[in-house]
């Protein structure tokens, strides 16, 4: 078991390095950097000036070295500016150059400064993640029980009327991406068209205080897409289990249908959906970005859009690392959890 964990962790680390490298590469392409130079030093500067600005700010060195610096395994660059004062990656404006650390990458906790929000990336990401965390919490609280219940109810009697109704519902829900369900929900419940106006079409006020009125629609929007998917997975798993020979054994032992489902089928049927729920995270993130943009809720997803839209390299890198980290950790949890849920693998 320990060996398995160690192997998984090693693989996770390797994936993290590969992915951050790719992200770093894509965000630090020449055109992006030139755009940064124009943003910082004025949009009308000549190509030669752009090149010299890049050189002065340490962007001309080999790509691998810059990646190492950003990661914090290569010492930050140092040099002098036009006035002859020492500058460098790790020397912040107004700070004493002598006391600056040699390494300053994400490993040291220095995530850089956002050019849009003029604040430390670490701080921005932490606050925004907090806001998104609240949203995700409510999404999970509504989505998981509802979808599991739908899946199990539909799967326990395959082909029944209940199954058909719930299955069609799930299919409809998986066919409705967040930007569609968001629009439809707003039109139905928050627009002048139907005039219902039960909920608010914006969740901007939810950042100060969550109410049912301002938070219901965003939560419902994200949950709706997920419910269908998880419910279908659960149903598939449940129908498969219900046709298994051991369920017949249980039934012919005289176990009541209720206990066949609860005691014999449920645990076996939930192994697959567990993995599915865990692997949904990368894709729930999608929903978060869309929903936060649509409802103007300034969480992690909204920040990601701002960073990408404004070529804020440091912030975009910070957000990406966070997102990838979340995904990789959930993958790890899913692997380990699967092993624990399934006695066949646990004993090995």
């Amino acid at each position, binding site marked *: 078991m320990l060996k398995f964990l160690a192997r998984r962790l090693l693989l996770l680390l390797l994936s993290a390095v590969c992915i951050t490298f790719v*992200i770093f590469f894509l*965000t630090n392409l020449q*055109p*992006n950097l030139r755009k940064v130079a124009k943003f910082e030093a004025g949009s009308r500067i000549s190509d030669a000036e752009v090149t010299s600005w890049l050189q002065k700010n340490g962007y001309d060195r080999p790509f691998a070295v810059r990646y190492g610096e950003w990661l914090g395994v290569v010492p930050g660059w140092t040099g002098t500016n036009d006035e002859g004062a020492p500058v460098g990656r790790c020397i912040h404006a107004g700070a004493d150059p002598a006391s600056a650390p040699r390494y300053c990458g994400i490993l040291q906790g220095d995530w850089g400064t956002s050019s849009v929000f003029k604040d430390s990336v670490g701080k921005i990401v932490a606050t925004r993640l907090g806001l998104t965390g609240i949203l995700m919490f409510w999404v999970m609280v509504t989505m998981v029980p509802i979808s599991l219940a739908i899946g199990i109810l539909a799967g326990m009697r395959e082909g029944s009327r209940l199954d058909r109704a719930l299955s069609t519902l799930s299919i409809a829900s998986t066919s409705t*991406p967040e930007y569609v369900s968001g*629009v*439809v929900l707003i039109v139905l419940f928050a627009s002048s068209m139907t005039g219902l106006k039960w909920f608010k079409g914006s969740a901007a006020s939810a950042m100060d205080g969550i109410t049912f009125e301002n938070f219901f629609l965003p939560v419902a929007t994200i949950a709706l897409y997920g419910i269908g998917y998880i419910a279908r997975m659960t149903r598939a798993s449940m129908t498969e289990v219900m046709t298994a020979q051991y369920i017949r054994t249980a039934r012919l032992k005289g176990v009541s249908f209720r206990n066949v489902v609860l005691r014999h089928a449920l645990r076996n049927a939930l192994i697959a959906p567990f993995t599915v729920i865990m692997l949904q995270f*990368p894709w729930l993130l999608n929903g978060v970005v869309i929903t936060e943009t649509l409802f103007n809720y300034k969480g992690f997803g909204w920040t*990601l859009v701002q960073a990408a839209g404004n070529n804020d390299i440091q912030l975009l890198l910070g957000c990406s690392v966070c997102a990838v980290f979340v995904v990789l950790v959930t993958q790890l949890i899913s692997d380990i959890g699967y092993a624990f849920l399934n006695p066949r693998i646990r004993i090995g």
Partner: protein
Amino acid sequence: MTPLNWSEILLAVALRLWPVWAALIATFALSIIFKRRLGLYGKLFDSTVGMIGFALVMFWAYTALFAPMIIDHDVLSQVGQMKNVVPGTPMPDGSGYYLLGGDHLGRDVFSRMVAGSSVVLQIAPLATLFAYMVGITLGLPAGYFGGRLDDGLSFLANLVLAFPVILLFYLLVTPEIVETGLPQYVAAVIFILPLLFLLLLLNSRYYVKPGFRNAAAAVILVAGGWTYLSLVSEKDTRIAFLPDALDWIHVPPNILIVFVSVIFVNAPTVFRIVRGLTLDIRTRDYVAAAQTRGEGPWYIMLWEILPNARGPLIVDFCLRIGYTTILLGTLGFFGLGLSPESPDWGSTINAGRKLLTIAPHPAFVPALALMSLVLGLNLLADGLREESLRD
């Protein structure tokens, strides 16, 4: 002219769509008559769910096909007085109605929705097809040979899957990336796979008949190679080696990057499915029989394993077109890749969402369109799965 009421609007819309109805009725009539002779496709007409799904999908397919006949207003022309007007509003010059209203720039929502269907239905199935080519060409050997090849490819696939899709889009679908020529390089690699696939398919089976093999290979190489070069080469970009006169396919770089990134997102999942199916089928006796008569690995993969994996793959293909449609919508929703003028559904939803609480119809109409197409594809897949499991 007086504005139309809802029933008049519906009637008018239905009338505009007459070629679609005609084609749909013809398709269904022919299919139901011959359903017992049409294999799995025919069996689809035994399942209500499958038929509804098929009808929805074909509705949009025919709409896309007949779009030029259906559209009644130019999709780009803006009419000042028609900004955000409600459905059924007559044109100021009396030349007809905005059947489903006007958007924030005064364009016809109905015509844009119809035009949008042809954008979506051009890109989504084709991108999915290429994702399949990539997934199959890599998944078959990974599953069949196993070992280090499998480890390496699976690691790569998992790596791509660990990227949140939206992040990948924001990183890949940018003008800066287009400027570097990266999408064209990637496309150069991806588009050669179908060619490779065809040649392998041919050679693995017909190497015992060299005459036929050589002739067919020559045809594939000339026709396929030319198509490939035309696809990859584009004037005024990093890869522009083919003279203009010979370059018969023009893909604007911003569409190409959308195409490439959608393939990139889908291919790893297809890879995993194909790999899983291969792992299962390669233990069958007919594979062992092929091995014992000395068949090459590619013959076994392409002619013994792949045809027997087709059931689950066809079902997944339908689902995946739906997913790709959603992805394209996502790209449009964030204004990535496609031009803001483009009538595709995602971009239209994006343009309409700002005024959602005041004028809902410009976003609502494409949203419903997208949902119904994806729903159709999902129902179709469900029907196919159910029917293929029966009997």
